[in-house]
């Protein structure tokens, strides 16, 4: 520690006393012993002099030579004095000093640290960010000086952290205490791991500092936990969005026709395979526009699933109105046929659907919380579909008819609503929305023949909890179930979460058999 302080004093002295570098230090760069070289590099770094950057850079590029007693930099056919930077005569037979890996590593971090004094704020910022993970106690004086000179608030904040990290190894308990206090403000797991050794007696002899460190770790932990929970809530939101896309269609078909469509999950699968088909098509014919396959897949998936839905309704479901339990079995049969068809057409293995490039990456909200773009886009997409469905149901003639049939089929028929056609349309609409759900699902999970099966139970839970015939119910139930299950998952594991949610639903239905948003009115069975 004392050494560093002396080095700091020396460094400060050299900075004020002379513009050029100390020739002795520069000479030491070409010393025989690696340890001497390292010491020289470190001392030169402490000066924070632009000349030091020049010399160290030359050394790292192998253009530093020893000529007699002088260190020279040779650039092409010109030669410069190492210490002063003046152009000199080309020396007779320059010797190249050995630069081994240890020296190279030392040079790299020295140059990185010196970037903190660069004139360009962008370079300084990048350097400060890079330093966060590789601070050593020797850097403390350097960082202190950089901090003094820094004007940019963002860089300053980063430097404070780096300086504090470096100071954790300071011999003075007061300095360590200040460092710990500064670090307590952060929320990064790396800083937590830096602080952890200080919470034990072996790592920190001073009681005051140790208690402070324990408190700091606790504070960081609680902030980390918050970030983690926010992350979970967000992934719950995106799960809820998928559930919503699945459940919207179900809510419509169940609301209008009183039919539980067990093949609804397979309509999700149809939509996902349609996405896969579009991807294959774009790869084969428009490889330059491959990123656009996903928007192109949206209408294709909608109509593919809607078409399958219409065929299902016309051939099977139409004949089973009023026999809900039998419909359950028949649609289950349909789902088996669809699964096996997908296996025959596309193979039993999962197919690969890749994210377009604009969906990869994410937004970093906190050091340990990154919201991936694909999930953000899915949430937005679900909201968009929800909006479209809301418009369709509330602002169009078709929507009015669908609502009329939902409320009172016989009366709607009497006033001239073509109920049979509305059934088909509503079924196609529900199927199409499931197809859209398949597009979204293809971006975050595997696409395979069995993919629909996993979502069907959850989608039904949404309909059961949300109540029938109301979009609002499905929305709240889907988001609530999604977030609740993800939070529980983080706390108790996926299986326990699933089971406890099921138990909650059963209890919930005890209290509200009609779901959250029941249609008001009196019903006779």
């Amino acid at each position: 520690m004392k050494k560093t302080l002396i080095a700091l004093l020396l460094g400060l002295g050299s900075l004020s006393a002379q513009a050029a570098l100390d020739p002795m230090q520069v000479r030491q760069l070409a010393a025989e012993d690696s340890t001497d070289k390292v010491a020289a590099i470190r001392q030169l770094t402490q000066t924070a002099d632009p000349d030091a950057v020049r010399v160290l850079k030359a050394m790292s590029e192998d253009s530093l030579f020893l000529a007699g007693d002088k260190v020279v930099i040779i650039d092409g056919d010109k030669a410069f004095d190492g210490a002063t930077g003046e152009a000199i005569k080309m020396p007779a037979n320059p010797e190249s000093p050995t630069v081994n890996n240890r020296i190279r590593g030392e040079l790299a971090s020295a140059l990185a640290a010196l970037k903190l004094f660069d004139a360009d704020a962008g370079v300084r910022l990048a350097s400060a960010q890079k330093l966060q993970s590789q601070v050593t106690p020797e850097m403390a004086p350097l960082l202190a000086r950089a901090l003094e000179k820094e004007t940019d608030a963002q860089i300053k904040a980063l430097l404070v952290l780096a300086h504090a990290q470096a100071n954790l190894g300071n011999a003075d308990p007061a300095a360590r205490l200040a460092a710990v206090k500064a670090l307590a403000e952060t929320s990064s797991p790396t800083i937590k791991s830096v602080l952890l050794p200080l919470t034990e007696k072996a790592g920190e002899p001073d009681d005051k500092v140790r208690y402070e460190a324990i408190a700091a770790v606790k504070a960081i932990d609680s902030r980390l936990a918050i970030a983690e929970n926010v992350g979970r809530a967000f992934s719950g939101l995106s799960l809820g969005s998928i559930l919503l896309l699945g459940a919207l269609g179900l809510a419509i078909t169940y609301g209008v026709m009183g039919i539980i469509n067990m093949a609804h999950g397979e309509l999700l699968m149809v939509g996902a395979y349609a996405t896969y088909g579009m991807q294959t098509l774009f790869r084969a014919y428009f490889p330059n526009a491959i990123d656009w396959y996903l928007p192109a897949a949206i209408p294709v998936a909608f109509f593919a699933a809607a078409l399958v839905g219409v065929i299902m309704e016309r051939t099977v479901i139409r004949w089973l109105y009023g026999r809900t339990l039998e419909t359950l079995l028949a649609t289950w049969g349909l789902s088996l046929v669809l699964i096996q068809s997908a296996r025959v057409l596309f193979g039993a293995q999962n197919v690969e659907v890749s994210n377009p490039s604009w969906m990869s990456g994410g937004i970093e909200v906190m050091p340990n919380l990154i919201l991936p773009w694909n999930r953000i886009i899915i949430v937005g997409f679900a909201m968009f579909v929800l909006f479209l469905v809301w418009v369709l149901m509330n602002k169009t003639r078709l929507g009015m008819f669908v609502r009329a049939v939902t409320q009172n089929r016989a009366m709607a028929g009497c006033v001239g609503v073509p109920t049979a056609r509305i059934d088909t349309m509503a079924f196609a609409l529900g199927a199409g929305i499931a197809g859209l759900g398949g597009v979204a699902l293809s971006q975050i999970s595997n696409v395979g023949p069995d993919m629909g099966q996993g979502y069907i139970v959850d989608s039904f839970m949404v309909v059961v909890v949300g109540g029938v015939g109301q979009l609002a119910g499905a929305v709240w139930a889907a988001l609530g179930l999604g977030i609740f299950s993800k939070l529980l998952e983080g706390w108790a594991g996926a299986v326990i979460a699933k089971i406890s949610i099921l138990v909650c639903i059963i209890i919930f239905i005890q209290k509200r058999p009609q779901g959250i948003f029941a249609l008001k009115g009196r019903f006779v069975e």
Partner: protein
Amino acid sequence: MRKPLTLRILSALDKKSWLALGIFLALALVVVPVLHLHFPEDSALHVSTYAITLIGKIMCYALVAVAMDLIWGYGGILSLGHGLFFALGGYAFGMYLMRQIGRDGSYGADLPDFMVFLDWKELPWFWLGSDKFGWVAFLVMAVPALVAFVFGYFAFRSRIKGVYFSIITQALTYAAMLLFFRNETGFGGNNGFTDFKRVLGYSITSSETRLVLFGLTAVMLAVTLVFSAWLVKSKFGRVLTAIRDAESRVMFIGYNPLWYKLTIWVISAVLCGIAGALYVPQVGIINPSEMSPGNSIEIAIWVAVGGRGTLIGPVIGAFVVNLAKSWFTVSFPEYWLFFLGLLFIVVTLMLPQGLVGLWKKIMTKKGAEAC
């Protein structure tokens, strides 16, 4: 004056049915063992081990189908979670079979192999007494009964019915499947129980043990059929059918449907548990996939194919569908799901009364033509 019990049981079936039942039992208990043991394997009359296992397995399924019919055909409640009760019975008896392996497992330890693999030092509490046949036989019935009672009480009390009930039972078996897939649950995780060696000290692979199990299953099926026939003809059964047809009216007359539904629901679950316990030693394996929603819904199709609301229908349905399944999965494995799917559709669309209904229709037509 009420008739004595024996008379009441006798009157549960008509003469023809008693005769058919007698022939069935004679076949299962005398003819099959004789054919299996006394004819060499190359003889045309020999009944192979494969056939005995297959038929034994299907009889277990038939038992489940009858249980399902009690609740669906007579109670009007479609359960899509009966695979759970079947598997619970199977797991309960599987615990006993695992303990009977003793030190003959691949690790040669006192604990079942999977526990050694998980580095457990002692049996979990719920394995207590699993080496006693009597206690396990009790568990086989008590565990499904308890689960069914608790779940059914809450579901029926809040008058969940129709598709809602079906969906919730499906979710129940799905959740249970996930639970049993976990290694920490203590039932062997993914692999479940297998590699059984003995039952009650007798080798599980010997012909005699197989025949005894086969016979037991046949007797159990016969007893269940007689019991069910008596049950559905009793006052209880009539109230149940009335609830199926018009629950509100039954309530207004002054019956509380809760207890009727709950009773038949628990009886049905217990029968499934027994079927599961008979199934496991014959097939030699039980794993969580028995609880998959697909398996449970298949039970419903056995009943639908045979004919709901009749007692012979489910038995016929279980045999027809499962024989078709074993034929398809050997000859055209990729078409089995197509066939099963179409079966679901065709039966619900064209044969709402199942094969028994079709038969009755043909007979009445013949009868009408004869007149």
